[in-house]
């Protein structure tokens, strides 16, 4: 079972909810925000396994290539150029769609691997953490997000800390999840981007509910907004300085009884929603 934690707006508290919820419920944790993974900071130290992840790029057999230029013509991302003497590949523009490989009349192209990052995993107290780490300069995170997702064990429930926004990275992270917990804040910015993210979830058909973080600031009525959109409110986390301070120090909030109760209640609400 996969439970996504997403938001729309960045900085609303996706990681805060992910790390505390997975810890209080004893669940596995995955960080799919591969451009800046940070959930591991709350997981504790331990030995980790690092596996390199590659994405497919074209490799051209120059002895078979007759420079017809069909590959450059079919590439939707302009990653291939037919120079007078050879085909040039811009691996950074390649999306790995495989069109050139399949449509080369001479079958002179095969897929080679371009290393784009790593899959890091570790285990502690029966819980597993896995996250992707994208290499600097890589523009397209989607293949690495897919790699992290497919490394999750199907028989176990995993809380997935997802990327912000509503672009390809977020879509790829939440796609196919059993449930999505949307974390927002009661500000105009938080409400606006939450609305966009809810559009995405509705299109993807992922059942979802909303957590209001920093409740008490901002003044936007998220409860009314959720009611008008038919989205369930799962719970709220108060806007308190000590919460921000402890989270910023890398501490889990559930170490304090009253905050532990907040996340226990939140997990209860998620389970009830998933069953109904």
């Amino acid at each position, binding site marked *: 079972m996969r439970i996504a934690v997403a938001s729309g707006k960045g900085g609303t508290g996706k990681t805060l909810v992910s790390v505390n919820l997975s810890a209080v419920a004893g669940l596995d944790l995955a960080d799919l925000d591969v451009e800046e993974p940070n959930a591991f900071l709350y997981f504790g130290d331990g030995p980790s396994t690092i596996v390199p992840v590659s994405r497919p790029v074209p490799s051209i057999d120059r002895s078979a290539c007759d420079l017809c230029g069909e590959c*450059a013509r079919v590439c939707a*991302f*302009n*990653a291939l*150029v*037919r*120079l*007078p003497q050879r085909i*040039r590949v811009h691996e950074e*523009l390649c999306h790995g769609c495989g069109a050139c490989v399949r449509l080369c009349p001479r079958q002179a192209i095969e897929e080679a691997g371009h290393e784009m990052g790593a899959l890091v995993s570790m285990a502690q107290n029966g819980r597993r953490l896995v996250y992707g780490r994208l290499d600097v300069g890589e523009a397209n995170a989607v293949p690495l997000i897919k790699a992290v997702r497919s490394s999750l064990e199907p028989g176990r429930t995993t809380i997935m800390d997802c990327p912000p926004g509503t672009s390809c990275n977020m879509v790829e992270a939440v796609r196919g999840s059993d449930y999505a917990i949307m974390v927002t804040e009661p500000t105009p910015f938080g409400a606006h981007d939450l609305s966009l993210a809810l559009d995405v979830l509705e299109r993807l058909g992922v059942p979802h509910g909303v957590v209001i973080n920093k409740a008490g600031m901002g003044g936007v009525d998220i409860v009314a907004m959720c009611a008008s959109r038919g989205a369930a409110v799962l719970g709220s986390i108060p806007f308190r300085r000590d919460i921000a301070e402890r989270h910023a120090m890398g501490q889990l909030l559930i170490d304090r009884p009253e905050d532990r109760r907040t996340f226990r209640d939140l997990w209860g609400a998620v389970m009830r929603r998933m069953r109904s």
Partner: protein
Amino acid sequence: MTGDKGRVAISATGASIEGEMDHHFGRCRCFAIAEGEHMLTIENTARDASEGAGVKAAQLMIDNRVDVVITGSLGPKASQVLEEAGIRSFVGISGKVADVLERYRKGRLEASSGDSRDRDVQRKDRDDSLRTH
């Protein structure tokens, strides 16, 4: 090179030779291509590409057997493709297409390295590639 200093492509805002140049290489409206007495305008089919417009425009230059490109700005990938294809480029140029062509043919355009980005950025890119390879 044949004709009057080869086959020259100038990024342009319209089909008229009296019109202004377009600053962008990859996303200009069209290219004025001149060779000797002959002049034609081709539409820049790369301009709407979501990614790699510069590279696609460079392919257009190769396919049209251009010898020289004159434009305002040129990115690193397109610049590299032109260089590898043996196409000379002049960047940071502006003005009316006809005037620019005239200036080029009289040898009054200053040759440049291609990539038109800030020199510090280029230096940093070079340092980065030295570190990683």
